[in-house]
């Protein structure tokens, strides 16, 4: 008798037992916050900032897509790729070539550079079918090095003719074309934020459905994923295809953002820095990608404006990665709320103490 009472009592004593629901109210609140934030960034932000920071934030939009892609590979599948900056360079190259060589609308060029990069980037992902961890990182890094070498000898298109679209003898190099609706820097910033938002939606749609669950299974354990019926080869290639696609689109946006592309601006080690900031931001988190891009593009811009060399960031990122790996494996995005909550409790306790003293 007493045992049945004990078993029966907890649900009654506790808060109301909520009926499980797939779409809790927090989803709706989150959606509203995201849309409001997006509207603020697109409509208000460019007029509040100088062109210098608008350009920096355009780069943030571009690199948030790249970071999101790397986050999918590292955070969702556990595949470390050190070739993502090279994949971005491929996207930028293809877009530049098409923008100089054709009159296609900018959106079509973005789509095309995404698809072509998807094909090439998936090839970079092929080694991932047989290996992971350090070896995969090494192989992708070397492939990235190879791509960098090829791009250095091929050069980025500058309005020349032929396959490469490069003419070393050109004196007046024309800038890369921008979409008609976004020729000014603030307008192009808005354009790139919207492209980034579309890419984020594409990725979230994957993560929330069958491929996302299959990737989570692969990350947890490949044998278990196979036993669950997941065609691991297919889903890994799918991940590389998706990531290469969005990175290629990011490359297309980058081409229009900087307007002049030089192979010297694409270094193999950029991929390593990219991994560092993605880990710092939080590889598992969607927001982590934005934080990573802010680290990578806004911090250098800030340091520059303060007259400091952005080279210091290498050291800062090194310390940051160390800190993240030792104390906050989920990155800044998940650590910050915890730290803030801790700080809040600390402050509250402090206040509590002072008030109790006052009372005393």
């Amino acid at each position, binding site marked *: 008798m007493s045992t049945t009472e004990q078993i029966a009592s907890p649900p009654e004593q506790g808060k109301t*037992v909520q009926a*499980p*629901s*797939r779409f809790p109210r927090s989803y709706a609140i989150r959606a509203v916050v995201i849309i409001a934030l997006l509207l603020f960034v697109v409509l208000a932000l460019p007029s509040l900032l100088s062109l210098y920071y608008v350009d920096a934030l355009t780069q943030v939009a571009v690199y948030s897509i790249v970071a999101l892609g790397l986050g999918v590979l590292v955070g969702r599948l556990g595949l470390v790729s050190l070739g993502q900056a090279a994949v971005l360079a491929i996207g930028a190259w293809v877009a530049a070539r098409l923008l100089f060589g054709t009159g296609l609308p900018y959106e079509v060029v973005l789509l095309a550079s995404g698809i072509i990069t998807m094909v090439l980037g998936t090839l970079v992902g092929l080694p991932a079918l047989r290996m992971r961890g350090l070896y995969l990182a090494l192989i992708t890094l070397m492939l990235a090095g190879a791509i960098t070498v090829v791009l250095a000898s091929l050069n980025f298109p500058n309005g020349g003719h032929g396959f490469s679209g490069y003419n070393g003898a050109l004196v007046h190099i024309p800038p890369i074309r921008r979409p008609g609706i976004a020729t000014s820097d603030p307008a192009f910033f808005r354009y790139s934020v919207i492209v980034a938002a579309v890419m984020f939606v594409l990725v979230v749609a994957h993560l929330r459905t*069958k491929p996302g*669950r*299959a990737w*989570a*299974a692969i*990350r*947890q*354990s490949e*044998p*278990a994923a*196979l*036993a*669950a*019926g*997941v*065609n*691991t080869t297919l889903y890994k290639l799918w991940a590389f295809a998706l990531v290469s696609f969005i990175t290629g689109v990011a490359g297309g946006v980058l081409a229009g953002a900087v307007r002049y592309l030089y192979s010297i601006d694409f270094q193999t080690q950029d991929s390593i820095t990219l991994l560092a900031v993605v880990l710092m931001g939080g590889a*598992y988190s969607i927001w982590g990608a934005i934080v990573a891009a802010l680290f990578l593009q806004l911090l250098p811009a800030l340091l520059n404006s303060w007259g400091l060399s952005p080279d210091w960031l290498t050291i800062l990122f090194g310390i940051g990665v160390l800190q993240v790996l030792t104390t906050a494996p989920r990155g800044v995005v998940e650590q910050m709320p915890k730290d803030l909550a801790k700080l809040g409790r600390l402050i509250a306790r402090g206040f509590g103490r002072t008030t109790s003293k006052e009372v005393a």
Partner: protein
Amino acid sequence: MIEVSDLTVRFGGVTSLDGMSVRFEPGTNGLIGPNGAGKTTFFNVLSGFVKPATGSVTAFGDDLLGMVHFRRARWGLRRSFQTEQAIEELSVYDNVAMIHEHSKIGSADRRSDVEGAIAIVGLESVAYTRVNTLGAGQRRLVEVARAIVGKPRLVLLDEPAAGLPDAETAHLGEVIRGIPEHTGALTILVDHDMSLVSSCCSNAAVLDFGKMIASGPTAEVLRDERVVRAYLGGEAAEGVAA
């Protein structure tokens, strides 16, 4: 019915399964034996992770070993592993739903099938909770729910009760005993907890050093002299016999 005949697996010089032949009947079957006897190797052969040197496995008339590993889940093979495999980042619902997604059943009844499997193991109250917030016992139940969703034909459970406290093992036993009734699947249970095996399994088979040394009704098998000797070691068994 699962018909295993002359199954041999070698890793270099080690013979993990040595001409294993046995027949598993519908219902819940125990597969027991000392550590290193080849139980998990046998499961790995059925899952397609290990290729046997010789032998065949016929499951309900189909040649199981002829199928690509990830297609076996589609055929109706489910298994749990000794190490925990519930996907931490996903909710209980998503953990179970992803198995359903990769089975050959359409999505029409997915929600009711998945919720049904979650109800059988008794996790309705945490169905939309992320697995990494659950305790060890509940995570095991998630794995069982993954094993029984979507009309499985053959369920392999590899030491599901290892490390669980008695109360949770008792609940797990109840759930396992219900698998044939709820799903119609043939279940093979590997565990070292003999009271769990004898309470769940009408039949049992015993592996020792890769050889089948006994099979039949569980109570008889557990009394078998060779089984006692295999578990207790030669000398101790002689003492028991004397």
